[in-house]
């Protein structure tokens, strides 16, 4: 049984609200006394995931569970899926549209950052069905 379970729906239409779920998770983790280093890793990994959901998948759902030894994040969407995961994992590879780039995103750093800041990550994606990203940060 986890110490804490959190669920957030990510709104796919509103780019200005991206980050709300990550910020909320960050606050809750702080109140639990989780180390700042672990919180930072979770916050960055989640925010990148949130941005990806807004850009590519018209939103989705984030589940976070906190256990004594780790924080688990599951990001599930029913978007268009990732055609080539290996390519998507390369820094600089991006399929984001220009309007997203104009906001300072879409540089092809999202998934690489998620990999960098989580201690374990798995991606399950089917084109036309959606993507689930599973990440763990160890405490």
């Amino acid at each position, binding site marked *: 049984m986890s110490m804490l379970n959190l669920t957030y729906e990510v709104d796919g239409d509103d780019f200005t609200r991206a980050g709300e779920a990550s*910020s909320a998770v*960050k606050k809750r983790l702080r109140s639990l006394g989780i180390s*700042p280093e672990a919180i930072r890793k979770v916050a*960055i990994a989640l925010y990148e995931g949130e941005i990806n959901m807004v850009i590519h998948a018209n939103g989705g759902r984030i589940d976070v569970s906190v256990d004594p030894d780790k924080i688990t994040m599951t990001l599930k969407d029913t978007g268009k899926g990732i055609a080539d995961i290996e390519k998507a994992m390369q820094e600089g590879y991006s399929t984001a549209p220009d309007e997203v780039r104009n906001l*300072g995103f879409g540089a092809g750093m999202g998934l690489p950052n998620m990999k960098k800041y989580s201690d374990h990550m798995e991606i399950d994606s089917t084109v036309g069905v959606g993507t689930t990203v599973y990440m763990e940060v160890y405490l």
Partner: protein
Amino acid sequence: MTPVEFANKYDLEILSVGEGETREIRGIYCCDLLSLVMGRAKEDDAFFTVMANVNTIAVGVLADVACVVLCEGIRPDELTLQRAKEQDVTLLLSQKDSFRTALDLWKELQR
């Protein structure tokens, strides 16, 4: 040096004070590509940018920087300013470019 001390000494405008009176700046990061900032700015850095949109604030919060310094006199819109205040992000405005503003801070950090 705290963000507020820096702002007062070098004549930057304090748009949102956040924790700027108590938090120590420990490093500098300059970049306008938020995707890079997320991965590379360090906790307690002062983050210099001309990207003045609401996502800049989110990145500032999540990367846990000491302050966000908007350069070249580029003002944020109302939503961005409001978000900075809500999230306790220290937001400063410099009329100089990123390099010159960061250089002033760099000199202070070397003392």
